[in-house]
């Protein structure tokens, strides 16, 4: 069962199944890969937004914490990692 990362519940580890590279810019895609965020990796969405909006999203990947916008998160398909 897959879902999009921008809707994924916080604090639950998920595995990236597919990234729609066409939905994000070339530079953004490269930066995601430089962060190590690519198909097959495991991530944990942790914090979402503040007082004013649901943007951005903070997540852990490996030993790093990164921030992305929900627009990019919407291009990332995930499934529960426990499987």
């Amino acid at each position, binding site marked *: 069962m897959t879902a999009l990362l921008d809707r994924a519940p916080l604090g639950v580890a998920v595995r990236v199944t597919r990234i729609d590279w066409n939905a994000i810019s070339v530079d953004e895609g490269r930066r995601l890969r430089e*962060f*190590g965020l690519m198909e097959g990796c495991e991530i944990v969405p942790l914090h979402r937004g503040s*007082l004013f909006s649901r943007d951005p999203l*903070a997540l852990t990947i490996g030993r790093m914490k990164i921030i992305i916008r929900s627009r990019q998160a919407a291009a990332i398909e995930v499934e529960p990692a426990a499987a």
Partner: protein
Amino acid sequence: MTGPIPSVALVGNPNAGKSSLFNALTGARQKIANYPGVTVERKAGHASFADGRPIALIDLPGTYSLTPASLDEAVTRDVVLGKQAGEKRPDALIVVVDAANLDNHLCFALELLALGLPTVIALNMLDLAERDGLTLDPQRLARELGVPVVPTVAVRKRGLAELLEAVDEAIRTHQPRDVVAAPRSDASLHQRARALARAATLSETPVRRWTQRVDSVVLHPIGGFALLLALMFVMFQSVYAAAEAPADVLESGIGVLQGWVIDTLPDTFLRGLIVEGVLAGVGAVIVFLPQILILFLFILLLEASGYMARAAFLMDGLMGKVGLSGRGFIPLLSSFACAVPGIMATRAIPDEKDRLTTILIAPLMTCSARMPVYALVIGAFIPARNVGGTPIGLQGLVLFGLFLSGIVGALLVAYVLRRSVTRGNAAGFMMEMPRYQWPRARDIAIALWQRAWIFLRRAGTIIAMTTVVLWLLLSFPKAPVGQSQVEYSVAGRIASGLEVIVKPIGFNHDIALALIPAMAAREVAVSAMATANAIDASGDEEAMAETLGERLQGKWSLATALAFLAWFVFAPQCISTIAITRRETNGWKWPLFMVGYLFLLAYAAAGITYWTAVAFGLG
């Protein structure tokens, strides 16, 4: 054997602790300049090998790969490839990696190793990795990578001698080696890096729970935001409260110096120039050094502790609504001290349009140079009483309102610009959140000293020069007996011309006269009015401002005073800001646009304020 001094570049990911390592290696022996043609800071310094031979070090901007996403990352690529104009290709690289984040940092390291330069890996922040439950095997990593790996803890100066020794060895024994090409695709690069990291990791216990707990408070949608506001509040309070004592000392020091010059020199042209021109003008600016340093101290502490990225996270939602990104928060916050370092800090914003918009609105943040103007006019025209029965002072409230008008104005301008002249892709926002760290006194002190030096150099050059020019313009030609020197002088006549334009918005001759030199630095408006009011400026600045305030009360209506304040919220007149904008945007187009829109806004804001006030009978 004597040869040319070897030059070595420190290169690595952001947050690898590169600058701390650079500071530890070079101490305060650093030189900051710009790479020719681009405005990226070039940090260079010297260290020496154990036997005393010197070695030149440069600290390159942190980046994730050799494919740059922003201006400073492009410099890193160009320097290590030997393509940066005016910069020799380094003889060797020190690749700095965070011991606790090898998975990620080894990717860039692999890319750099493939360049074939003599290379040493600094396995940095090993102590923090151990705190995080990691036990690493540097020798294993060295065998796998084929280059020396030296564990370092920059803060405690551990491993520095070994690091330099390894660099020396690497340069001496270097032969063009068969370079193992870095894996082509990002995925295989990461796979290789992960495999290496696993091989070098002896044991790993998952800890770092407390970081998570801290973040759940700091990044809480409401609580985190309240904490951010509280921090900002404390910051601005300290800027004004804690700076008072040192500012007084500086002030009286300048007064003593003026008195000494008056006692020593005969009453000549030169004495007037030194006392009323240079000392009064430069002194009026240097008095703000404590405020600027306190603001920078806060910014540096927030940055070094890892909090700034959290603040950017919290602000991103709001800034995204007007087409900016959380990345812009740091430059805008710096702009409260001075727009010049703020605008320079925009280099880290990868999106060109996002960056340009941030540059254009940076002058709307109430910089410290506006404080003397606000302080003078508020002190003279706003009664020092509390609002209703509350402990909130009316003067403070007006000051706060002026700050707020600048911020709200900036957000509105950004909103309009992003839908017109700087339209582009919706700004992206991707950044790494560094770990929390205890800021190092040494690193903070070095950075603070560098800021202070830049500020003092500016005060000594541009501000000193304009005050001297203004003083000359006010002193010549000599008025015949019975006529006002100020009116008769060159500056007075220019002001009379300008007065025609600013009269509709309630400005008088005093203000018209002050607006011209205020182009150099906003705070000069105060000393210009002081000189123009023919008040002896040889006393201390506070006494001068006081009597000046009383003079103004007699000459200005409340409506004029309010209009003057409104003007300064948008006031575009600062040559340094215009110059830095020209440099950062590579041309005159954007600085001219910025000056134009700021003038229009200032004129409109002052006009509306004046007309409204007059309508309420305050004229």
